């Protein structure tokens, strides 16, 4: 019996180590993602004025649209924080509820972004119009793809929470998705400033 207990404890420790290792790896992954976005920002800044006769930012950016996107994404970052708080308190229903709210806000963000892109393309501002627009669509689109990927991941985690409850594995996953979500929020703040605000000014 004693052996089984120590075995169990041992098992538990192994798991704990494993999960903290994975979180560390995820942080380092975020570093690489940071560099990825940094490079995209750099190309955007270089090509920002190369409009080749096509529209400039001022003509195509819709202020109401991108302000709404910003507001929604910031809010979703806040709600994802609330989800982690609920997890620490061990309240699984509250946790899943906040995750659902976060995902819905994320979905709204993606919807608005698709709408924005759609209108631009309809007005003839496509990815192949000019270097400026190539850089714009690639930078903002990459962020959008990240958010979409995060949404699918978040839904998968919600299902897993329903199946397994809060345990070291699921809490690590919730922690990491929320980390990812905050990261995307920070990237968006840069996008908002460098692309949209500086674009309409």
């Amino acid at each position, binding site marked *: 019996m004693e052996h089984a207990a120590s075995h169990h404890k041992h098992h538990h420790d192994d798991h704990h180590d494993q999960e903290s*290792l994975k979180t*560390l*790896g995820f942080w*380092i992954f975020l570093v690489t993602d940071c560099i990825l976005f940094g490079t995209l920002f750099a190309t955007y800044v270089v*090509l920002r004025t*190369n409009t080749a006769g096509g529209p400039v930012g001022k003509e195509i950016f819709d202020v109401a649209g991108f302000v709404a996107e910003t507001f929604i994404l910031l809010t979703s970052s806040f709600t994802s924080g609330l989800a982690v708080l609920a997890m620490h308190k061990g309240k699984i229903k509250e946790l899943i509820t906040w995750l659902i709210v976060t995902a819905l806000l994320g979905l709204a963000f993606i919807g608005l972004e698709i709408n924005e892109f759609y209108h631009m393309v309809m007005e003839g501002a496509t990815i192949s119009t000019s*270097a400026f627009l*190539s850089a714009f669509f690639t930078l903002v689109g990459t962020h959008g793809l990240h958010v979409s990927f995060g949404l*699918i991941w978040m839904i998968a985690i919600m299902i897993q929470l329903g199946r*397994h409850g809060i345990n070291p594995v699921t809490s690590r996953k919730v922690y990491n998705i929320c980390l990812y979500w905050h990261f995307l929020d920070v990237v968006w703040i840069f996008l908002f400033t460098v692309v949209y605000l500086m674009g309409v000014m």
Partner: protein
Amino acid sequence: MWEKIKDFASTFFVTGDPLIYGADVAIVLTTFAIIFVLTYYKKWGWLWREWLTTVDHKKIGIMYLIASLLMLFRGGVDALLMRLQLALPEMHFLHSEHYNAIFTTHGTIMILFMAMPMMFALFNIVVPLQIGARDVAYPFLNALSFWLFFFGALLFNISFVIGGSPDSGWLAYPPLSELSHSPGVGQNFYIWGIQISGIGSLATGINFLVTILKMRAPGMKLMDMPMFTWSVLATCILIIFAFPILTVTLGLLFVDRFFGGHFFTMDGGGNPMMYVNLIWMWGHPEVYIVILPAFGIFSEIVSTFSRKKIFGYKSMVFAMMIISVLAFFTWVHHFFTMGAGADVNAFFAVTTMAIAIPTGVKVFNWLFTMFRGRIQLKQPMLWTLAFIPCFAVGGATGVMLAVAPADYQYHNSYFLIAHFHQVLIGGVVFGYLAGIYYWWPKMFGFKLDERLGKWGFWLWNIGFYVCFMPQYALGFMGMTRRVYTYGWDLGWAPLNFTSTVGAFLMGAGFVFQIWQIAYSIKHGERDRTGDPWNGRTLEWSIPSPAPHYNFAVIPQVKGPDAWWEMKKEMQQDGTKKKPVQLKPIHMPKNSGIPFIMSVFWFIAGFGFTFSWVWMAVFGLIGVGICLLARSFQYDTDYYIPVKEIERTEKALGRAV
């Protein structure tokens, strides 16, 4: 219908060259032979269970090694074809487009599909054993890294027979690599082959960084780590900072080619020079990524075979860290001739030269490790000794190239070609070969034959100097790289001919090495001790080849050269040995997902290459499903019971 199929086939398959038909036949025959052997001996299940689904770092390392040797063969054949074409002026052996494709694939394969996997092979086999760990931090991710590399390399290599090879240079400068000048699918193969394997490399960087930081045996402080582990740490940091830039750069080129973007085009406001900057912001750190582990290997070997502590350990570590930092501030020296201002060129010239300082320090430390030691001229040591003068000269020409105004005369000439081959062959290839000879017994349990190895060694070395010394001179004669032919009037013929002879000598050296491996499998000296070289680090404390859990008991480390100190202690204590308590060992389960997911990546890459959107989407959905499937897996590990450990250890001749 028939006509349509014929049309399709004539663009889909590469046709019209006897060399390629020969390759086609060879590929088909080899494939059938492999399938036949596997079926006849009923080995499919074995292949799947033991190799394709393994998450064992040692097996993954061996697969990396095999793949990299195959790629060395292919890259080498490319090199020999080029040297044949250049042996004499106005040769008609290869025509221009064929030559261009060959030098492109030669460069890409040698750096990305030969050097990188050979490096990862040694990472995988050695690092966990050296730090006293049972596996890497993320064994599943490790397997995924390998299969991504494998299928990326496969995608790149099939361009040889399907669709056509890329032919705009190994770094694919636009606008030459843009749709406007390279309309074929070759460039797409290039993008996706590298992109897919690049994701794997990035994951390996993260994996080994965490492994080294978090999974060292108890008591092993950072400053107790073996030098090779230190070099892997430095390399991983470089990978983490450099590879995302490559991902983005190739991604943007893909946007240009697939969506009609204007990042690097001549029209639409594109900026081709930005690509050159971006690719070298990855490309320069990349050469340090491949050379630093070689430095680590030399440090291990010099110390072991001089039977002496490594000289100036702290200096060595410090030098490596300086190199890693400086690596990110030298990229402009690849294009001084772009005409950036004198201030910019001067800055990058000085940073580039400055790298020679820590590198030089390392060379002196190696020399003084040997000084007052007892040098055994075994194969790993031979390669290390060949490296020192070769790399010293290569480094010196590197410093000469760094002198910006003088570089205007060397740039893109054969002087440059000779320089980087000297540091890449003399440094990286010699280093990895030394490492392979050194750790071979640990991988397979037998040593490689000395006599055949010496043939290989001398052919490689003599061949190297015969091949590349004339190329320095050719650079001074004004011969530029990437010309597929030249005239009789230029006076380049004798040196080119000599160079070709040298290349074939190196090729012969490689043949001897393959022979050596084949011969040693049967007749090689078995390693029954686990410590054939009287080693100093922990990997030599366990049997060769290591059991799948590596260490029955995780060692307690008290300082650098852990195994050396343990051996000394054991001698002092005599036979007094503390009984050890075995515990069940926690291990990761094998998984087929890395393999399957990489197959889907391959399908997606192939689809993007031919602009078959349905196929690309299918592949990406497959990748997504694999990711989700993994996310939902909770039963990913198991325990090895004590009885089984005891049984295994006894079978390996170890008292427990």
